[in-house]
């Protein structure tokens, strides 16, 4: 009997232990390291920091800038300078930087902020979302958008065409503008120190939205089925609401503290990676032929150009204005907007406006760089600048030549930006030859797109294969949709 009692006590003790405290005991599975809810300012900071460092200052620009030979990558070939880019190289840009770090968080912020009526936040989120999506489609072509970021409903998102994506992008920018103007919006917390671009100046964000709209309308100027004049007029209409001076320039100011430095500095100057990224002989030749004083600002120390793809002499490292530790990263400049207006005005036949905008675009580019040029050329700077402007601020009577002037100035003014690559693909101006030692024998011109990334080939195979783009490096010679009919550009030739 005594044994039975012991067994009873034993079982009772265990069951008591369980019923009274077991659930509490086991409720330890909420992650102590990571929050489940995050406020709008914390999300916005993350989005801006990621988008700036990983996308606008990251791999897409590093690569495509060598393709348009503003820079070169002076290393043992093959490298991306020789167009050696495959599905693995381009994987991070798609996988981590764009679809997850930036755009998914833009979607979350835009939904959360809308629900909380913090429409300034949702507006900014939509601008960056649209912008990043444009970079994805400009690099890879068709891409998931309408079925993206819905893992339960669409575990294998289908691809939207680039044409569709551009309508979504314009729509997002429109929504952003609407959000900013909503009367029922709440402003506590207000966008402020969490906004590294404009410090909470929503008016400037709205101008940026219009400026991007103008850029994207013009992007489709020579797209199949699109009317060049119509796109130019749409761009002009949008540009009217755009940036109104260099004070409106969208720039991300980095700091010289370790781990806070400008992405170009980290990538190409400080030795953490290497110093292979150097000024290209192409842009050096282009600018020095014209005594362009901005070249001094583009280069660190003596100006020298590296011949893309060669095993030749080293070029200058990138200039301090662009690649010092605390240099700004340029998102969007007033000068680009003016040159957009100049191009659009020329297309719609308004040469007077084209001339005015062109001149403004040129002068604002110099205004932005005058300090940097002065630091290099000293007392000679002012004279060199005014001489150059005097020599170059007049559009040629020939529309074709004028178009060359505008696009060449835009190529220079957009130094180290992704947009310079898009403009070159769209117009072929300035003319860029193949780098030496191209990795593929069948290349006739520099890389025209990225291949689809390995993540898609592995985990969304059916949908990516339906796009008909060659797998891997062979893709770089395929044009994206808006770039598929170059003969439409009558002004370019």
């Amino acid at each position, binding site marked *: 009997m005594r044994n039975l009692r012991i067994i009873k006590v034993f079982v009772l003790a265990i069951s008591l232990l369980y019923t009274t405290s*077991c659930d509490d005991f086991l409720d330890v599975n909420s992650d102590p390291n*990571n929050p489940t809810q995050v406020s709008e300012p914390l999300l916005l900071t993350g989005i801006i920091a990621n988008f700036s460092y990983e996308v606008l200052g990251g791999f897409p620009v590093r690569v495509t800038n060598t393709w348009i030979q503003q820079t070169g990558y002076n290393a043992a070939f093959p490298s991306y300078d020789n167009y050696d880019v495959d599905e693995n190289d381009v994987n991070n840009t798609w996988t981590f930087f764009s679809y997850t770090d930036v755009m998914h968080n833009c979607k979350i912020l835009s939904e959360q902020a809308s629900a909380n009526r913090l429409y300034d936040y949702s507006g900014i989120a939509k601008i960056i979302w649209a912008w990043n999506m444009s970079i994805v489609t400009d690099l890879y072509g068709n891409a*998931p958008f309408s079925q993206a970021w819905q893992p339960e409903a669409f575990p294998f998102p289908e691809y939207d065409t680039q044409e569709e994506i551009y309508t979504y992008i314009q729509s997002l920018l429109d929504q952003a503008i609407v959000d900013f103007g909503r009367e029922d919006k709440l402003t506590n917390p207000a966008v402020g120190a969490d906004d590294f671009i404009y410090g909470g100046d929503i008016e400037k964000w709205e101008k940026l939205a219009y400026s991007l709209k103008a850029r994207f309308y013009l992007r489709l100027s020579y797209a199949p089925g699109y009317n060049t004049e119509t796109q130019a007029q749409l761009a002009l209409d949008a540009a009217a609401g755009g940036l109104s001076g260099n004070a409106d320039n969208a720039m991300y100011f980095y700091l010289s503290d370790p781990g*806070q430095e400008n992405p170009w500095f980290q990538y190409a100057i400080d030795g953490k990676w290497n110093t292979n990224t150097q000024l290209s002989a192409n842009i050096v030749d282009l600018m020095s032929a014209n005594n362009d004083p901005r070249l001094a600002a583009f280069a660190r120390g003596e100006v020298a150009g590296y011949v893309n793809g060669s095993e030749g002499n080293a070029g200058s490292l990138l200039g301090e204005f662009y690649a010092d530790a605390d240099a700004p990263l340029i998102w969007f400049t007033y000068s680009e907007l003016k040159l957009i207006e100049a191009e659009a005005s020329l297309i719609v036949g308004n040469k007077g406006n084209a001339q005015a905008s062109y001149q403004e675009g040129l002068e604002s580019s110099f205004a932005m760089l005058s300090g940097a040029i002065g630091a290099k050329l000293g007392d000679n700077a002012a004279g060199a600048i005014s001489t150059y402007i005097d020599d170059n601020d007049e559009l040629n009577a020939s529309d074709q030549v004028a178009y060359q002037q505008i696009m060449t100035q835009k190529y220079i003014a957009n130094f180290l930006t992704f947009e310079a690559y898009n403009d070159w693909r769209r117009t072929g101006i300035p003319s860029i030859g193949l780098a030496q030692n191209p990795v593929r024998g069948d290349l006739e011109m520099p890389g025209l797109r990225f291949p689809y990334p*390995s993540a898609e080939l592995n*985990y969304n195979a059916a949908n990516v294969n339906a796009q008909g783009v060659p797998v891997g490096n062979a893709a770089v010679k395929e044009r994206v949709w808006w770039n598929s009919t170059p003969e439409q550009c009558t002004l370019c030739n």
Partner: protein
Amino acid sequence: MRRILLLLLFAQFTFLSAFAQDRLLSGNVKDETGAPLPGVTVLVKGTTTGTITDVDGNFKLNAPEDAQTLVFQYIGYENKEVAVGTQTSFNVSLTTDTKQLEEVVVTAIGVEQKKRTLGYALQTVNSDELVKATESNIVNSLAGKVAGVQINSSGGQAGSSSRIVIRGNTSLSGTNAPLFVIDGIPIDNSQNTANSGVESTLFGGTQSNRAIDLDPNVIEDVTVLKGAAATVLYGSRGANGVIMITTKRGKDTGGKPRVEISSRYGIDRPIVRGFQDEFLQGIGGNYRNGLPAGEGGFRSLDPETNPTGATASQGSTSWGPSINNIDQFTLDSIGVPQIFDPRREFYRNAKVWENNVRVLGGSDKLNYLLSFSNLEQEGIAPGNRFDRKNLTATINAKLSEKLRYTGTTRYTNSYNSRLTEGNGQRSYLYALNYWPISHDINKYYTESGEYYSFVNNAFNNPFWLAENNGRFSRVNRFTINQQLDYDVLPWLKVTNRFGLDAYHDANEDHVNVGTRGTPNGRLYTADITNYEINNDLMLTVDKQINDDFAITGLLGNNINSRKYKNSLMVGTNLNIPSFFDISNVSTVQAYEFDQEIRSFSLYAKVGFEFRNMLFLNLQGRNDWSSTLPVEDRSYLYGSADVSFVFTELLQIDQNILPYGKLRLSYSQAGNTAPAYSTIQTFNQSDTGDGTRGVINIPTQGQNAFELDNVQTNNQLQHELISEFEVGADLKFWNNRVGLDFAYYNRESDNQIVTASVTPTTGFTNRIVNAGQIKNEGVELTLTGTPVDLQNGFRWDVQVNYARNRTTVGKLADGIESIFLYGFTSPQIRADVNNGYGVIWGERFLRNDKGRLVIGNNGLPIQDSSLGSIGNVQPDWTGGIRNTFSYKGLTLSALFDARIGGDILNFDLFYMTYYGTAELTEDRGSVIVWDGVIDNGDGTYRENDIPVVKDGAYYRNFYSNSTELFVEDASFIKLRELSLSYNLPSSLLDRLPVENVSFSVIARNLFIASNFSFWDPEGSLGGNGNGQGFYHSVTPGTRGISFGINVSL
């Protein structure tokens, strides 16, 4: 049960010593065959006076005047009583006791059971075999000794981790490591690194697995529980098998303390090969000496335009001239360049010194053991060392007739100083493997005192790295067991066993100012704490119902709680060089990684015995786990096993088949989810370019968060492992030959997988119940004594063989493979079509006949997509130990083999580029690739285009083809060769010592392998799932050590 206790009691008498002294009795004890029996207990009946026989079977005993009878006791033999009378000399022969020849083993939860009752396989390795391994990591000492256990050392640095996997990989993306249990309590065997969660092991290498804190000197034996039937009572954590360690205990020495001292001194050398020793630094056959401009920088290129030979551009590669073909310009300018062996210059003879002192003793009421060990181990790389101090105290006390207490406290203090390995300039192997033979590795300062390497800014000098950088781990660890046993009734016992395992690891990573790649320096300092509390409360029943039937039973409860915390500070830019304190940095980033896992379980076991012949065991366990969703946190599973000792029924001639058993079991085991898999969270943003560029968050005074890239799952269910096992245990020819065979088929279903998904869903990974992985295999252990002579010569053999096949049944919907470790290319992954441990990377294009497709340049064409280029799983593994003993002399050799399976030699990839690999020694020769050329019309012709294997060939083509760096990972090692000698008692008589033995042990004396670097054991990912990734890890070592053991 009583019989077992009796056996234990006998064991405790083994080291009795005499203290009453009246009559000197002496004699000799032999077995039935006339061979001397050492270790026989000789007792004066009715007293505790006694002694044991020496290696020759001799004994001397001071017996009291009134001694009537001597009792001779030896495990496995019948007791013999001999009347004393007036005799003083005794020649006694003992006979085998077949009833007592009953192996008792410790099974799950520490339950002792007769081996014959078990319906599943387990295998035990005793202390002698462990010590012979002369490995500081207990995991390595098991290599080759247990069938079905695969061990892979991650590299040759002292204090490196080792992976141990039993019966193949059971989990797709979770841990496959078995549970380590010491004296019944689970302990942590994690591999911690200061920067885990911040930086991948790809860029720094790994540190040790924490089982390295165990002191091999106090381990009595290690029992490996292999299948699910054996481990079911350990629940989820035993799903990958269990390594059960039993430690040495005190003994009844009649009160007199016994002191045991062992000491070992050894030397280790690196196992290195695979480097060319003919071609100098340079480019295109032209010599460059790698010195900085102004410091004698010289190059032989183009004497016309470069008459002085001094230029800034040096080049780091070894594509210079042959030592036999140096151009006149160079000879005239600087003479014949000096040749070095950089690897030999850098690695050193590493010394190991290990000492252990044990004091043990006690009475029948209380016994104790105190042990102190000190290990000081140098690594072959300067700066690398592993030191360990272990203090163990254990007490067994009989508090009353019914209540017993066991308490053990273990303290470990270990220190590991490591060099950074892995991919990148901070890795010492990065330069060492590419170091040209014509450049002096010992010179790394210019005359003006400036640090330089063979090409400035590109590489670090390994000596400089060893002096300036390092990764340091200082561990303080307590492991405590507290156990009470209460005999309620002779057949009913209550046990409570409490365990605590707690450690603190002060873990730092130093990068000094001036380091190429991190010029401003860096400091990681991490406080890692881990504790585990475990309690088992059990009722055990052992009742003989009648002559035919017996019942055993167990009812228990387990409560387990584990908490891990890593507080990490990352300091960037050291202000004062060489001063590693967090105050001395420009910016500090702080991180916290916390994890808490708890479980509550009930378990039960019932065993039925019929005529000591037929046994049935039923086991079950229900776990409630904290890591599953609340509504699905409870899960039940169990096993049934049958054992049939057919020789009891058939009565086969003892000389032929004295013992034969058949086993059969079917079991299921549940497994739980990793912590925090059910609730979606945000992370602090980690802004960076995925390689080296980074924006530290918080930035500009603002914190930032982003959604976790891994999608959690609030519908998760537990995993389920099902295993069928059948086996036999046979003993032949008077037990001289034993054979143990097992076949198993194990299926892990509903696997919790962190599956990669298309990032367009907004996540890169998703946690799902999806995967299925199967393992099927056989294990064979053969033991035998081919020779056993009258004169004492004996030859014992043990053979272990195992073969395991892993198939990945399925992964998540639409997913055919998952990433395990590595870069985008190459990497290791699990793949539905190719199995587990697939080497994945760039490969050559093949036509439909499997022939290489050759391009117009005569070189194979790269396939545009990545694919499987190898598999790391071996075909079979095995070990053979031969032991020869003659009187006090024992010679033992252990061969360990792993046959089949591939390894990715990613070092070779770089070394081919840099021209230091031995395979580039054929440079200049011509090759015609075996392949076909596409005619463009769907037909192919045989390739006939010759290609010169020049620098461009190796650099631009060869080193770009990952497929060429997949090598055969097979090896056969003479893992241990030991010679030991026990001094005969005749020599010890006049000394105040009981036993003295000497040993000489050589480790890895012989290795046969096709691997370019010789020893294919090594893994950049340490003991993780991504095995077979050999890249910038320290080569394995071979060594010899000399030991002495003394008992007082």
